[in-house]
């Protein structure tokens, strides 16, 4: 049985004014997806793809132009601060920059106690107990609560930020590039912590990152965004191992490969797909596919008509593909895995709920 949806985003658009005379910038343009309970959905794309804007719109930090956001069945598209306050025990966030995400003038204990004081009437001792227990759970030393953010490293601060998000046992945590600012070794630790917490607390994550391998590691499903639109969506492993959309392929080819031989093959493949992954002078077409000006296989129709996001048919082995959607005129069925790109080495991934 499929678990119920905790988050439903329908046809979401976010626009930013760019001053007089210029049309508004469509940061997010008709994006729709769902997050089920206990599931991690990854949003990937380069900067400017609108991935963070989607997260911020869900949190009420960006005004929504059109579309609908439902959280646990409740419409929160334009929720007032009072409603947000009511939601904050179930919907939480972890931001990218660990150095700006904690108030430097307050102790860690004060910061972590804040959500408890808003939502639950607890005695001082009980609050301290909860704070200490949570800090311990995210792997911070016992004396953390009395200290200030300035005394901790980036990775430690990110653990503290995660602890703050989890103080009220939320259902969904928006993770906006939570490991991008960290060293590689620390990234792995923090990602493992997120994965552990998910299985313990049956959390859902909306995991936003520009790094496809990172998203692949944690996510069950992935949405690939470009210029505010979803170009490809589907099961994380399938999208990663058999990218269908030319943009996803370019994005994967851009990630460095630790194995030198594989990296060489990849570099050749990238040279073949000249143009993909590098911006050309041509401006994106207003009516056609948003990726057409950078696409290595674009034909005339791509520049004239915008391809809808369509669900592909069965996979090559006959088994039904788990809802792979691609927005491309030229891709109509999931690609067969090629030997060169088969089985990229990656870390184990949490099981599908």
């Amino acid at each position, binding site marked *: 049985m499929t678990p119920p949806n905790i988050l439903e985003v329908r046809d979401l658009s976010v626009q930013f004014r760019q001053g007089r005379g210029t049309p508004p910038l469509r940061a997010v343009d008709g994006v729709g997806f769902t997050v089920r309970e206990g599931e991690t959905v990854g949003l990937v794309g380069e900067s400017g793809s609108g991935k963070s804007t989607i997260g*911020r719109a869900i*949190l*009420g*930090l960006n005004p929504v132009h059109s579309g609908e956001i439902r959280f646990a069945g409740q419409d929160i598209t334009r929720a007032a*601060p*009072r*409603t*947000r*306050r*009511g*939601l*904050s025990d179930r*919907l*939480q*966030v972890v*931001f*990218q*920059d660990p150095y*700006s*995400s*904690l*108030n*430097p*003038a*307050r*102790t860690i204990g004060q*910061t972590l106690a804040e*959500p408890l004081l*808003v939502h639950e009437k607890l005695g001082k001792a009980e609050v301290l107990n909860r704070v200490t227990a949570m800090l311990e759970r995210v792997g911070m030393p016992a004396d953390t609560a009395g200290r*200030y953010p*300035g*005394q901790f490293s980036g990775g430690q601060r990110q653990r503290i930020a995660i602890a*703050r998000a989890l103080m009220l046992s939320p259902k969904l945590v928006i993770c906006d590039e939570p490991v991008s600012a960290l060293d590689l070794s620390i990234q792995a630790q923090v990602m493992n912590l997120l994965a552990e917490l998910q299985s313990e607390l049956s959390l859902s994550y909306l995991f936003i990152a520009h790094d496809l391998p990172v998203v692949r590691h944690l996510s069950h499903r992935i949405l690939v965004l470009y210029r505010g639109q979803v170009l490809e969506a589907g099961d994380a492993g399938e999208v990663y191992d058999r990218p269908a959309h030319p943009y996803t392929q370019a994005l994967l080819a851009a990630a460095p490969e630790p194995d030198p031989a594989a990296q060489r093959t990849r570099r050749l493949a990238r040279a073949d797909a000249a143009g993909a992954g590098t911006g050309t002078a041509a401006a994106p077409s207003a009516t056609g596919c948003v990726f057409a000006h950078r696409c290595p296989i674009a034909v005339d129709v791509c520049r004239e008509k915008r391809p809808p996001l369509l669900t592909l048919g069965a996979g090559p082995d006959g088994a039904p593909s788990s809802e792979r959607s691609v927005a491309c005129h030229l891709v109509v069925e999931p690609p067969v895995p090629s030997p060169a790109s088969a089985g990229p080495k990656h870390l184990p991934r949490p099981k599908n709920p």
Partner: protein
Amino acid sequence: MAILRLVVRRLLSSIPLLFVVSAFTFVLVSLVPGDPARTIVGQHATEAQYDDVRARLGLDDSLPAQYWHWLRGVLHGDLGASLFTGEPVAQMLNTRLPVSLSLIVTGTIVSGIIGVSLGVLSARRGGALVRTVDVLSLVGLAVPAFWLALVLIALFAVKLRWLPVTGYVPFADDPTEWARSLVLPVVSMSVSSVAIIAKQTRDSVLDTMSRDFIRVMEANGFRQRSILYRHVLRNAALPVVTVLGVVMVSLLAGAVFVETIFALPGLGGETSSATVQHDIPVIQGVVLYVTGVVVVVNLLVDLAYGRLDPRVRAA
């Protein structure tokens, strides 16, 4: 306890500072052309009279000897006497210090309150108010204080007769008149300080509001007011406090002009006349007092920092 230790340490470390500053001033004044003995005896005095005065003032001694003589006096609590009036320097400055302190303290408070309010308002509202504050800042910084002082006198004292043109009434004599005598000087001194403080406050509030911990609170539906008062201002205050300290010290320098224009019997007016006359004991006394004020202001800034910033407290 830690605070007391900080205060004592800072006051002790200011002793060598006072020594260096006073020695430096002594050398500097001796380099300026001019001869107090000649000024005192006048042009028609005989050479013998002139030599006599020079000897009496100790001007024939070598520079180090003169400095040592002055320093020994200071260490015994004697700042010497004016070369011209013979009035003891300590007594002279003690009556003048309150005037200057009234000016710079009220100037700092007034420009602090107005500057911080303008800065916070423009950071919160944006738009037209931001541009207004920008223009005011530019004007405030560009307008010379002495010119503004003259314009204010012409308008409010001479034409409208709301306020006294010049002069000073001690607080103890009549608090109302004291305040009235300070209005124009404080306003003319504070305009540029308001501009600096408003700009710093706005930048610093905007910087704090751009931080992710504020995003977290907004996402959690905290009220804007409580975010501003409980979280933003506390963090934004640090650079503003630094600027307040700098402003206070610069007001001390500005006081020289303003006191002269408004005929206020403060340290500033005394400094300029003493410098023209080569009245070394008075100049040295003023330097000691001013350095003392600067040391105290910096100490206050550091104490405020310690209150506001846990990182400083830990260090």
